[in-house]
């Protein structure tokens, strides 16, 4: 077996070890590379930046613990921005497994910012139904969520004063890991109740949301850990996302090098088999 053939058949555990090292080492020894911001993330930032004080901002954390590494930093950055702008924040989730995490992030950031539950923000929790919840909120938020996560009646909360339905919400951002998510908020929410909608999502589904972005159905898109890092840079508060970008950078580079190497070995074998008139290279 030639060297190229041996390399193409390499034990996948060596690749796993390499990726593990590429992820771990930059986390321990950060590089601190500059992060360029993209128009799609800047759109979300600009919209929140120009919202008057006291405006209502709804953040729907539609993800489960599996997507925490990518979407949790997005939530932290957005909440810091919203609280800095003194917006009235409504938090909720359409994904049951994410309820605890959603409550944790809102409470934690609110406490850091000195915000009071019920007065500056509210966490509504989870309700079954996905799109049905959005439709009900479009008619009446207090009917869809008679009490918040802490069993306080929503109709009497100061933060929801004058906010009868989704028509009274200025901006909704859905941080989504799949279905139910941004598309659900658009179809059952923005299309009917005419609020502005932004999105945040995992890196793998971000390319699929570009048609919505290009047509103006969502005004901005924060895609994956990179999007979270850009948002952290914009609000001037570097956190886990920026820290994670070094690891992601090195890992991407490692994968690129692996792919280039595998093609070099593959072409080497193909050339030698064509020369020798033998069967095509093994290993897929």
């Amino acid at each position, binding site marked *: 077996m030639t060297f190229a053939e041996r390399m193409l058949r390499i034990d996948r555990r060596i690749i*796993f070890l390499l990726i593990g090292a590429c992820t771990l080492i930059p986390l321990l020894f950060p590089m601190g590379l500059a992060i360029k911001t993209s128009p799609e993330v800047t759109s979300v930032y600009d919209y929140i930046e120009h919202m008057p004080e006291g405006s209502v901002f709804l953040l729907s954390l539609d993800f489960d613990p599996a997507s925490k590494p990518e979407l949790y930093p997005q939530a932290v950055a957005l909440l810091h921005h919203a609280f800095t702008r003194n917006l009235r924040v409504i938090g909720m989730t359409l994904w049951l497994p994410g309820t605890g995490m959603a409550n944790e992030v809102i409470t934690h950031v609110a406490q850091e910012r000195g915000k009071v539950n019920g007065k500056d923000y509210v966490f509504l929790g989870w309700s079954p139904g996905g799109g049905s919840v959005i439709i009900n909120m479009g008619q009446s938020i207090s009917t869809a969520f008679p009490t918040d996560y802490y069993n306080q009646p929503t109709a009497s909360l100061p933060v929801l004063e004058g906010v009868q339905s989704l028509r009274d919400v200025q901006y909704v951002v859905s941080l989504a890991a799949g279905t139910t998510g941004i598309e659900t908020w658009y179809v059952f929410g923005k299309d009917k109740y005419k609020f502005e909608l932004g999105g945040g999502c995992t890196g793998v589904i971000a390319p699929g949301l570009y048609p919505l972005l290009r047509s103006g159905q969502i005004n901005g898109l924060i895609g994956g850990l990179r999007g979270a890092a850009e948002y952290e840079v914009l609000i001037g508060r570097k956190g886990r996302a920026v820290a994670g970008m070094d690891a992601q950078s090195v890992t991407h580079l490692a994968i690129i090098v692996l792919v280039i190497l595998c093609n070099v070995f593959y*072409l080497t074998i193909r050339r030698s088999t064509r020369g020798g008139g033998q069967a095509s290279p093994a290993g897929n």
Partner: protein
Amino acid sequence: MNFFRRRLPLLITFVTGVLFALQYYVPHPVSESMLTSVTKWLQIIGGFALVLGVTSLFHLHAVKIRRKEPGWGYSFVLYAGMIGTIAVGLWHNGKETVDNVTTAFGWIYNFMMVPLQGTMFAILAFFIASAAYRSFRARSPEAAVLLIAAIIVMMGRVPLGEHLIPLSGDLTQWILNVLNASVRRAILIGVSLGAIALSLKIIFGVERAYLGGGKE
């Protein structure tokens, strides 16, 4: 029996399907309140579906334990986990924290569910690398183009890549906003037409596979 298993569900599907398809075009408050009532029903049924899911899981594993099928010990583990989590959750009223103190339910959520789910998703990163090494080969000109585009986007989406090749960031934006968006739009149109066709077939009773029971 055939009336209740077949005809009645088809009739309900037809009436409600036509009604709520037309509801979209009727802005009158009567139409809106009808929609709100039905969505409340959907939420109630959605809550019941949770109970159904748990009950069916219990039943399935009870049979496994009773028959001592291979792996029945794991069914005991499942029972212990489910009953334990439900009991603890009910005890703390479903709250992970009370007055900033983590409850036992919160402990299970934070130290078992979150790491386990995170681990499964994190494995993807390693699998992507090994799959890429095994399969990303320029076997044909089309595969070569795909490979080059993939490398450009991988470079352009990370700071190190943009630092090494500054053009990769702009190229990545162009690929995502122009090439990717137009192709995704085409796929979306195709999928949406398929969804509309299927919905119309279900409403008018032409498609009945969702009723279960195989062919008639």
